[in-house]
């Protein structure tokens, strides 16, 4: 449980992160050992390693945390999570930071939110992912020049029968959409 003193001392952001992360209260037990950053395959590219991020969360530096590149460099490999001696669910906290940064318009230095949105829009519509649709929409709207480099790759996938030209739609898409709609209402998302 969160000690009352934490919220009273103004660490509102700490409370926010904890309340939105499964097992998030373990964050209170962070020892600042740095095993997380040392285990991260992309740690060197992070503005702040997870250890620093956790100190910043405790210090209520909400905007600096949410506008950093840290969580966008996370590849969800879970090395930090399994190595953390205090069982802090670090990868899950990174997901929470991604959600908060997107919601508050603070996601910078990254195309990841656009990729995620394109991916889930297709899922909501068809019930399955659609790689060609994902790649073409994502590149067209975010980095059209990169499409040139992707051309040969796409072609070699296509010639090996590894790229579908049309999406697959599940039979009961209405059922899935009703579930998604309800989950959004319950979760307070739009």
């Amino acid at each position, binding site marked *: 449980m969160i000690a009352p003193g934490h919220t009273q001392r103004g660490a509102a952001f700490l409370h926010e992160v904890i309340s939105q992360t499964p097992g998030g209260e373990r964050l209170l037990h962070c020892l600042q050992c740095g095993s997380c950053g040392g285990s991260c395959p992309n740690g060197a590219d992070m503005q702040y390693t997870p250890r620093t991020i956790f100190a910043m969360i405790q210090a209520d530096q909400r905007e600096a945390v949410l506008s950093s590149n840290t969580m966008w460099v996370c590849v969800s490999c879970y090395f930090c999570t*399994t190595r953390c001696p205090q069982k802090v669910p670090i990868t899950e906290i990174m997901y929470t930071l991604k959600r908060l940064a997107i919601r508050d318009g603070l996601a910078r230095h990254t195309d990841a939110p656009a990729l995620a949105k394109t991916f889930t829009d297709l899922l909501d519509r068809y019930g399955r992912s659609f790689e060609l649709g994902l790649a073409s929409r994502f590149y067209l709207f975010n980095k059209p020049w990169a499409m040139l480099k992707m051309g040969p790759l796409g072609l070699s996938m296509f010639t090996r029968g590894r790229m579908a030209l049309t999406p697959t739609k599940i039979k009961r898409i209405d059922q899935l959409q*009703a579930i998604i709609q309800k*989950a959004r209402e319950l979760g307070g998302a739009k």
Partner: protein
Amino acid sequence: MKYAYYPGCSLECNAAAYDWSVRAVAEVFGLELPEIDDWNCCGATEYFSQDELTACAVIARNLALVDPQLDQVVAPCAACYLNLAKVDRLMAEDPKMGQKINEALSAGGLHYTPGRVRVRHFLELLHSDVGEERIRQKVVRPLTGLRVAPYYGCQWVRPFKEIDNPEYPMKLDELLSWVGAEVIDYPVKAHCCGGHMTQISEPQAFELIRRLLYSAEEYKADLIACMCPMCQLNLDAYQSRVNGYFNTNFKIPIVYFTQVVGLALGLDMHRLGFGKEIVAARPVLEAKLQAQAAAPQS
């Protein structure tokens, strides 16, 4: 043995070789894999980055759709595997969240009781349910001399620690050795391929891919056997881009472990989906297997 099968979106097309080889190998051992009727995408990591409850509800729909007669579901994709397993656990550990997920499912007339189905990866089925003895018995073409790098990636190995060692897993090593392959002690076998980072930031993604290819080459692997469609795609389809970026000359075929196992079981290469990989596996396989056939039998 009968398991509900959750192929996941990649296996429908881009990773068809994985789907074909899973089904072909399962048939040899009498594992029945009826597909979950009307399953949907697991949302990969993308839904969790945006909306946790919706991410969980989308995944839970698949668990709720598992045939009531069956109590196990098998996913060959490591990302699908983790999502299914993660939501099942979350619902059990956090009943309030479980209740919300079920409330969302009820909008579609569905319900899921956490723990009702056990989520498995196809590797576990071969390694634990079929087991060493039966696998060895079915080998008709031992892959003697074929140097294979066993590549686990992340999301089957971690974050759950009870299936295999999260730092240095061994189950794929063992399985491949049972079919006669020369399994290299691949130091980066549980390191990350970058996942969707190839779409977001190429310099970071390419460096992670380079480390995996470099290590396999250092250990003189003939090929890398993987167990996730994302790993296969990144290492195979991006290999030439990685070569261009680092001025390297890697030419390592990336195949699914089920293709390697299927080969040892004597299954047809086309049926196992060989030829769909971009860096062709056939030349090295033919060279090694012919050399083996020509060698005097001991």
